């Protein structure tokens, strides 16, 4: 009983597979074609057999007519008597115009109509073992000169047997084709089903948390193999992303926990030793400062996440990159001056880009802010005091470059600093979330552009490249 149910379930699963459904379709098409071909062949074979019979009858009549023509009715009668006693012979009958039998092996005919000229297919009875048996025959009647009727027929039993053989052969062939197709379909379906089941099993294990699992590749390079390879590549990519995410969350933990610890410490210290309102006030102010710092880090992180998630931004317009750059330069100019830095802007618009003015402005603000901060740290004896912002069109793309003459970034570290949270160890002590560069890079990506860092000899040049908008 249980086995039966299992079998039914297994069968049900089999019927639901694509492979099985495909096999069924092929089976139907196959059967129809086989049927058509076999039908055509048998039809032609049967027609050929029929034709042969009528040719035989016609030839016999021709021979007899020749005899009649050369020797008259007597010779014809003699011929017929001789022929009609040979075994397996044709049917013969010669009558007068009035219908009296002169010779032949037909004892009686029911219909006078048969004595008109023409070809007929008819049933007749043969006395075998004392009882009459119906037989089919093809009969041709000719009217000879003098009104004599010559009737020659041929029994069709033989042909019918042959035709039966052909039909049966055709029937069996179709059955065989059907059986083979069903077996083939089931076999293919089961094979595919087996492999798919195996793949499903593996993916379940992977979903359960074992990301190191991989699908089996059989090496046949069939479609299932290719699927397995693609899925494996996808798993590989997911694994990389997970590793990246883990690294990032470690960094987030570090960069958020450090200010959180400071915040907590200052609050705790105020509680422990503070005894004047001024102490408390100072501690609270410090706490607020740290909280604001945390919010900044948080906002930057959200922004990067938003940029990395991609998708369309609301509020995208055609903006003039040169105008945005000069605006931001103008915003930072007094700040730079106060820091003893000369902030220069070079460039002439319009440089149309399809962008969010807000985001591009923020990216530029980050880059300019960085440039000013790092420049002001180098001693003024060198050329440390200039930050130049250049907006220009290069090779059909808009380039916004911010160059400083600060300490720069060693070649080996340049790609790394664009990643989230990476701050070179030397800069850990400086203010800033460490997200400025990665935020600018994320903004560039969001606008289908790039951010690259170059040696400004000396110093660092950050170049934001953006696609030129179609005006």
């Amino acid at each position, binding site marked *: 009983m249980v086995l039966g149910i299992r079998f039914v379930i297994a069968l049900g699963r089999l019927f639901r597979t694509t492979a099985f459904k495909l096999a069924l379709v092929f089976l139907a098409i196959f059967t129809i074609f086989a049927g058509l071909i076999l039908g055509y062949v048998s039809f032609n074979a049967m027609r050929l057999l029929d034709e042969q019979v009528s040719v035989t009858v016609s030839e016999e009549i021709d021979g007899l007519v020749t005899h009649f023509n050369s020797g008259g009715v007597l010779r014809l009668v003699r011929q017929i008597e001789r022929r009609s006693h040979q075994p397996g012979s044709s049917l013969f009958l010669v009558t007068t115009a009035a219908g009296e039998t002169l010779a032949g092996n037909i004892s009686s005919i029911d219909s006078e109509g048969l004595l008109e000229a023409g070809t007929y297919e008819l049933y007749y009875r043969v006395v075998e073992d004392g009882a009459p048996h119906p037989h089919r025959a093809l009969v041709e009647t000719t009217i000879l000169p003098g009104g004599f009727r010559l009737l020659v027929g041929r029994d069709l039993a033989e042909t019918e047997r042959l035709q039966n053989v052909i039909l049966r052969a055709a029937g069996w062939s179709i059955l065989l084709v059907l059986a083979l197709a069903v077996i083939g379909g089931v076999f293919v379906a089961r094979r595919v089903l087996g492999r798919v089941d195996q793949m499903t099993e593996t993916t379940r294990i992977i979903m359960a948390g074992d990301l190191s699992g991989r699908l089996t590749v059989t090496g046949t390079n069939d479609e299932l193999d290719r699927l397995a390879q693609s899925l494996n590549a996808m798993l590989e990519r997911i694994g990389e992303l997970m590793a990246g995410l883990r690294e990032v969350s470690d960094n987030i933990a570090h960069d958020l926990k450090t200010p959180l610890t400071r915040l907590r410490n200052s609050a705790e210290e105020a509680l422990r030793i503070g005894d004047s309102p001024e102490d408390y006030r100072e501690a609270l102010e410090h706490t*607020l400062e740290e*909280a604001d710092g945390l*919010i*900044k880090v948080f*906002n930057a992180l*959200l*922004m990067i996440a*938003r940029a990395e998630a991609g998708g369309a*931004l*609301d*509020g995208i317009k055609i903006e003039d990159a040169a105008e945005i750059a000069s*605006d931001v330069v*103008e*915003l*930072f100019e*007094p*700040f730079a*001056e*106060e820091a003893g830095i000369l902030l220069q802007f070079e460039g002439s618009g319009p440089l149309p880009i399809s962008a*969010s*003015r*807000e*985001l591009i*402005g*923020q990216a530029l*603000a*980050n880059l300019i*802010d960085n440039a000013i901060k790092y420049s002001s740290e180098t001693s003024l004896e060198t050329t440390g005091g200039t930050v130049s912002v250049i907006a220009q069109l290069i090779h059909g793309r808009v380039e916004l470059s911010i160059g400083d003459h600060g300490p720069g970034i060693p070649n080996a570290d340049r790609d790394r600093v664009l990643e989230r949270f990476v701050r070179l160890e030397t800069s850990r002590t400086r203010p*800033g*979330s460490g997200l*400025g560069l990665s935020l600018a890079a994320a903004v560039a990506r969001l606008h289908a552009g790039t951010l690259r860092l170059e040696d400004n000899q000396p110093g660092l040049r950050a170049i934001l490249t953006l696609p030129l908008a179609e005006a």
Partner: protein
Amino acid sequence: MKILIVEDDASASAYLDKAFRESGHVVDVSSDGLDGYAMAAEGEYDVIVVDRMIPRMDGLSLIHGLREQKVDTPILILSALGQVDDRVKGLRAGADDYLPKPYSFSELLARVEILARRGRSLPSEETIYRVGDLELNRLTRRVMRLETDIDLQPREFRLLEYLMRHTGQVVTRTMLLENVWDYHFDPQTNVIDVHVSRLRAKIDKGFDNPLIHTIRGAGYTIRDSAR
């Protein structure tokens, strides 16, 4: 002034309630969108502060509904979704100002007070702004103090114009960045302070009564303290 706060977080609304009352305002609090909508539709408030995500009717729908009903009370939207496009959505729905969470109360208060005053008068139609002996002509773009011309850069002029339009009111650094430069991001550094101190050097230097005042922990204000 009378303020309606629609915020579902009890501690946040209690904090706002207390803080606004201490600043001398009358406050009503609603903890969900539908009630808030009903109260706001009465139209007796000077400013409505709405959280973006509230139960029963979200903040954007509430604002949209009020605007459909021709309720033009100034609305400030508070949102935990501090993204660029979120702000655009809020303003598009009909809000007048937008403040991402977490915010500082001084920032919120400054914005609410400016919104409320905008609801009453339209000083932006005046041609000449005056604070004490300082005079700014918006048509000729001349700035004079005690009959002396003061030469300002275009941006400095706009900065002063904005401060004077809100004479006696506190404007925060972010409000200045938004209204004078049209940027809404946090510039990380005290760029605005440097601009204001430059302006201050041109306006107040050599005069006994300074007009531009720093409000600690909040921002700036322009007023005639001599009177």
